[in-house]
């Protein structure tokens, strides 16, 4: 728990899309999945998850339906729509380009200039 990082603004949506793309999830499941796939390195503020989920549903990137969770609770499950899949692809590409560019910039040594 020591090396947890606050997630950057704007990346929460991307993480949610990615988490849901691996299979339909309920809200708490999304939280756990993000922790799992980030190796526990990213800290999501739990409450903030829900406004983001609502936003993505409104934008038509996710769709929601009520079902039953693994421990027999009624829960709302989210899954990716085709628009959401497309968006995830775009955002992931964008993020990778940005991350690569920053990584290159940060790895620059004095003699390379």
């Amino acid at each position, binding site marked *: 728990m020591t090396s947890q990082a606050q997630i950057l603004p704007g990346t929460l949506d991307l993480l949610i899309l990615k988490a849901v793309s691996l299979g339909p999830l309920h809200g708490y499941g999304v939280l756990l999945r993000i922790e799992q796939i980030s190796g526990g390195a990213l800290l999501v503020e739990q*409450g*903030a998850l829900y406004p983001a989920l609502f936003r993505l549903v409104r934008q038509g990137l996710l769709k929601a339906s009520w079902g039953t969770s693994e421990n027999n609770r009624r*829960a*709302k499950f989210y899954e990716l729509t085709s*628009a959401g899949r497309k968006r995830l692809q775009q955002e992931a590409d964008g993020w990778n380009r940005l991350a690569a560019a920053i990584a290159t910039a940060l790895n620059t040594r004095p003699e390379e200039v």
Partner: protein
Amino acid sequence: MSLLSLLRSAIDALLHRARVENDTEEELRCHVQNRADDLERPGLTRAEAERRARIEFGGHEKYKEECREERGGFWLETVWTDMRYGLRMLAKSPGFTTVAILTLALGIGVNTTLFTAFDSLALKPLPVKDPDNIVRFERWFASGATGDMQHAFSYPEYLYYRDHHHAFSDVIAASWPTQVLATLPAESVGEWSAPPEPQPIECQLVSASYFSVLGINAVVGRVFGAEENQVPGTNPVVVLSHSFWLRQFNSDSQISGTTLEVNGTAFTIIGVAPPDFIGTGNPPRVPDFWAPIATQAQLIPRSDWLHEPTSRRLQLLGRIAPGSSHNQAQAETSVLTRQFAQAHPAPDTRSWDAETIAVTLEPATYFGETDELWFHAFVAGLMAVVGLVLLVACVNLANMSLARAANRQKEIGTRLALGASRGRLIRQLMTESVLLAMLGGLGGLLFSLWATKLAWLGLTRLVQALMGGGISIAAMTPDFRVFLYTFGLSLLTGVLFGLWPALQSSKADVTRSLKAEGSAFGQPLNRSRFRSFLVGGQVAVSMVLLISSGLLLRAMVRSQAARPGFETKKVFLLSLDLGSDKAKARVMKRQVINRLETLPEVADVALTDRLPYLGTMTFSLRVEGSQAPRKSLPGQTLVNYVSPSYFSTLGIPIVRGRDFSPQEAEALLPVVIVSESTARHAWPGEDPVGKHLKLAQPFRDRGGWKEYEVVGVAKDVRFFNLTRIDPEYTYLPTNVSQSNSVLIRAARSPRDTIARVRTSLGSLDKSLLPKLGFVSLDHFMQTQELLPQAAAIFAGILALLALALAAVGIYGVMAYLVTQRTREVGIRLAFGACTNDVLRLIVRQGMLPVGIGAACGLAVSTAISGLLRAILIFPGSYDLLFGVSAFDPTTYVGLTAILTSIALLACYMPTRRAMRVDPILALRYE
């Protein structure tokens, strides 16, 4: 796709609000439960696990609110919630709400009333069938002359348009109301009824299709049919106006088929027009009856309208045919106008009405000058004045809202702390103020319904006094434009007075507002300064309104005492119809004057070109042989053409020199008589008699100067304008051969004189009688006194409103400020301050903005007065102030004193009440 889903979720959210709300709640709870399940395993109790889960989750309500915001349809939903909340808040403080709604109702009501009047007079079309495709013909002269004559067309012109037009389904014509003599059923007094005497009544000649084209049906009998106008002189039938039928025939439903004797011819009454039909005239004027144009020879015996292309007596209206456009109709009209002008060249090419440059099709509203600049300027001026009252109301409310917002600081702080965003809070506060404004607008609409009726009555009386009886004004009823206007105005008002307080109070510092309610010492300085600014502004606006109404009121008092300087009660204008043949008319006029001069009941007969208070005639003036510096000499003079007996008829003394001699008048020699003022301005300190001056008419003889010799000086009069002595006035001689009005001075009682003149002229020529009329000059003068009365009443009402609103505003703010300072007062008193000192301190602080506002108001009033004086004053212009100086010190000082004392009272009363508080109680206040 995304738009569609947005819409769907919005509708979903609205329709299933409760379910969606529950779902959200359940989802969040589910999360916490799941988390608690995970936390429970390492050996925590369930309760402790749930507690931790909740803490980890964060602000439950805050996130719920954020979820709500992210959901579609949120905007609509919150408007609804805000409205319900707003209504609850308003209901919770009924005192504030009542005062606010009343204030707004007054402010908006006054504006709506004026707009309703403007709408009915200028915007609404004629109350006839399909008014949108009815157009009015308007003529434009090469000479640039404007006025009533622009709507006048001859019968041959009418026929030409009617028969050659394809873009119109029909063209109709109506004359101006004209006087006829009718033998009316005698009022029977017991068995002895007096033999019926012919009485003058008004009739209007219309084309046969007039009523049918307008879609007006008779309430009794029928209107004119197509056959009614075919053969001149046949089918003498009439349709009565509703009011005439009511007045003279007691609403007799069996009236159809009975006869009415007019000018000696028996007319058959065929029907009665509906009561709400007030004609198509401009301005609208209801005659006593309508008759087909074919009967003109019987009704107006000395003229022949049907065959004279220059006898322009008819107003034309056209109904554009279905399938044709306004442009098409206009293009065709232009072609037809040119063709007609080529076929009928004007007999006198030098006359101002000789050349028509265009005939345009105008929307058929009442009061045709509505598209002119002065009318717009006038309306804009009125709107601005009435707008000021609303502005005062707005400022009042902004002030009260600010005070209230300060009291609600705790509530607002709580909301901010619970995670409401600032935008959300502003939206909610604005909803409240707009809601209040809407309620006020509703009240204003109700108020205006009542006020419009009052205004209609007043306006009708004013117009009838100014333009003669029979004129009526279309009923002023609100239509969709009025509703739209009121709605827009209310919305604007709500935003105007709500925005600043909302911005201010939502800025609150959370911790401080939760800790201590805005105490006297914690009060942010800038906010109270802004409030003072509002009070000052309010006082300034009231001051401007007060001063203008004060000046007008003084003018009204003065107008009652204004004397014209000539005889008005015994002098009558003789209205005569001498026919359209000019040579015959001249002979007839000479005979009439000769006959009048032999009558012992007539003391004097005079000719004049101008009538008092009915328009001016101004010539350019060049003074010759004056010792005075060229710059100080007058360059313009009012002019009248008069016969030699004019001065004795009107009782204007010749103070120097002499009257015109009959020979000078007969030969129209270049001699003039000037007024005393003119003489004083042109030749100060010299004898004006024998001096020369040059005159040039603005229209005819373009720029040609003619020289005249001064033979006499007449005493100053107020002839063109009762409000002040005519600044420059030059009289030129005239005689019977010119087209002039005839004035007589009664030697006996007016009644006897009129009766004698009537019988005498009747024996000279019977056909003179129908149109013979007598108007006393006193009548012309009364119209001049009415305007300042109307203006003073109007301004007075507005000023009282503004004053009342300002007083309420000052009182409200002071009461609030004093309550806020109760603790401070308590401390001061506890430390031994004298009550009077504290009282003086608080009142002085309250009065400071009032003083500044009053000073600003005075400055603005002075500036406006000066500006108006510079713009509106020209020779012969109507001076609404009746010679009261626009900077009249009595008015300025007096009204400032009144306003200040009212403000002082409004400051003193709440302060005084606060002083009675026991200091110990005040300190324990919180």
